[in-house]
């Protein structure tokens, strides 16, 4: 294995570059992608850095192929990643499902821009949040993280690789154009612990590649290590062989979901600011959470006890955290650059306990704090 390349020290770096450096620090040695604004800086940096550190960069013919190459590279034994924006994310959905079904550890970054379709190539959006959750067909669980700054983009990319190995699942970095293109201080530590792949230890003879450990995650034997493996998107048994029975399907899909949902403490991160005495909670994520914080400070100046609940983990949705906040406040406001996506989850969890408001627009620019303030005042008025 080639040596890892960690660019320790303080940098003035944008979120895209921070994701690329986070991948390298986590031990990523394979990146396949197709360039797309506002993701291109990730690909550009890794195209420069990976060949110099013993890794592989491939510019694929499209995003279908990029995602397929990542699945193959992970089964070849590498830590693999791709990155894209909305239009490419749509093309990745089929093979993202393959990665989920085949329990392939990998990381996918989506630097969101305004959609649908080609939409706003150079301007911000957060309209892919539900696509991240349900974009591929079938029922499944995966993990999605939302950085609000270049520093967090670095930190969460490192964590994303560790989570993908622990759960053998794709982990999505759901960032956005503003965080991706925004330059800020990024401090990269001297030491970053590399999350190892869980390898089988038993004899080659009789090895079952999809027989899970106690935590429902099977160890992963990669191609060329001597263990027999069979990798298919068809419903399969513990040998990896197709089994078209409802029982086998139930067993597999249930385990693929349960292995994630049974361990929320491993991936659920939120941040609460000004929440101790808050009467209104503003819920947001990514770049919108920074605007929301500005609005919370404005509200406080006007005597409104507002606080911020920032979702760092979007999926699986932090039900318990949001429910806990709903029990402490008298109203909640969700702020996002779409016409209301994560707010549906808030609604589902809060179940009418408190009044809810949404501050939405479909992207092209971030909110202004005064727009969010109006949402806070609206929900205060209907207490």
């Amino acid at each position, binding site marked *: 294995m080639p040596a890892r390349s960690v660019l320790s020290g303080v940098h003035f770096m944008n979120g895209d570059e921070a994701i690329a450096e986070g991948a390298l620090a986590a031990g990523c040695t394979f990146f396949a992608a197709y360039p797309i604004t506002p993701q291109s800086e990730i690909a550009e940096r890794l195209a420069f850095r990976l060949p110099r550190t013993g890794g592989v960069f491939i510019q694929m013919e499209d995003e279908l192929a990029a995602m397929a190459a990542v699945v193959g590279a992970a089964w070849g034994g590498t830590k693999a990643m791709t990155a894209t924006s909305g239009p490419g994310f749509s093309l990745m959905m089929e093979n993202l499902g393959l990665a989920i079904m085949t329990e392939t550890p990998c990381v996918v970054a989506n630097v969101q821009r305004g959609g649908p379709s080609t939409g706003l190539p150079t301007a911000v959006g957060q309209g892919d949040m539900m696509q991240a959750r349900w974009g591929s067909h079938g029922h499944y669980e995966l993990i999605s993280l939302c950085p609000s700054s270049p520093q967090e983009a670095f930190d969460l990319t490192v964590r994303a690789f560790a989570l993908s190995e622990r759960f053998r699942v794709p982990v999505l970095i759901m960032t956005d154009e503003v965080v991706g*293109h925004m330059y800020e*201080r990024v401090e990269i530590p001297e030491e970053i612990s590399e999350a190892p792949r869980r390898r089988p230890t038993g004899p080659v003879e009789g090895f079952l590649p999809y027989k899970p450990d106690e935590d429902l995650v099977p160890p992963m034997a990669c191609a060329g290590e001597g263990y027999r493996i069979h990798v298919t998107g068809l419903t399969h048994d513990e040998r990896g062989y197709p089994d078209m029975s409802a029982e086998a399907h139930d067993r597999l899909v249930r385990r693929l979901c349960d292995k994630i949902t049974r361990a929320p403490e491993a991936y659920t991160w939120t941040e609460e600011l000004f929440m101790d005495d808050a009467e209104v909670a503003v819920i947001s994520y990514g770049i919108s959470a920074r605007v929301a914080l500005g609005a919370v400070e404005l509200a406080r100046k006007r005597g409104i006890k507002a606080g911020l609940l920032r979702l760092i983990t979007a999926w699986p949705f932090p039900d318990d955290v949001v429910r806990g906040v709903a029990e402490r406040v008298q109203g909640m406001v969700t702020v996002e650059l779409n016409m209301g996506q994560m707010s549906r989850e808030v609604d589902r969890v809060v179940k009418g306990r408190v009044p809810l408001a949404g501050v939405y627009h479909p992207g092209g620019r971030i909110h202004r704090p005064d727009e969010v303030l109006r949402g806070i005042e609206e929900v205060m008025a209907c207490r």
Partner: protein
Amino acid sequence: MRHEIRFAGFGGQGIVSAGRITGGAAVLHDGTHAVLTQNYGPEARGGACAAEVIVSDQPVDYPHITQPDALVIMSQEAYDKFSSRIQEGGLLLVDEDLVEYGERSDVKVVAVPSTRIAESLGRKIVANVVMLGALAAAWPAVSREAMLNAVLGSVPPHTKDLNQRAFEAGYDHVSKEAMHGAT
């Protein structure tokens, strides 16, 4: 302490680079907080282009500038679009050969022939660094040493000498003008 600046011109002039160097000077050399955001269209060159930098002793949440205390303007289009959006008493730095500007009593106008100076040094491409030298002399948010170090840290090694001369030329232009104005 909080300062906001907008750099504006057209793509290819090094507008975003100038913003990145300014933010880098603050973060890497002065040890303060800085955020750079940028606006540009799908074109590679020639389109309108702007970079916004906030320099602050506190972490910055809302990342866009609201009322800048400095503008660096390198095209007429940028002047027409942005020149009124500045704090009263702020600093308006223009490339005097590229921008026609009227009398301004509300702001301090500093005119620098940055593209012409850059051409006299042999490379038009360093006009943005001439402007950064001028900025370092006229704007208190970033120190001269920090700005120069950030310039030298972000240009290709074989162009360091040229860029240093461009920086000094811009800095001296403003310093001399200030001395001249004082006498």
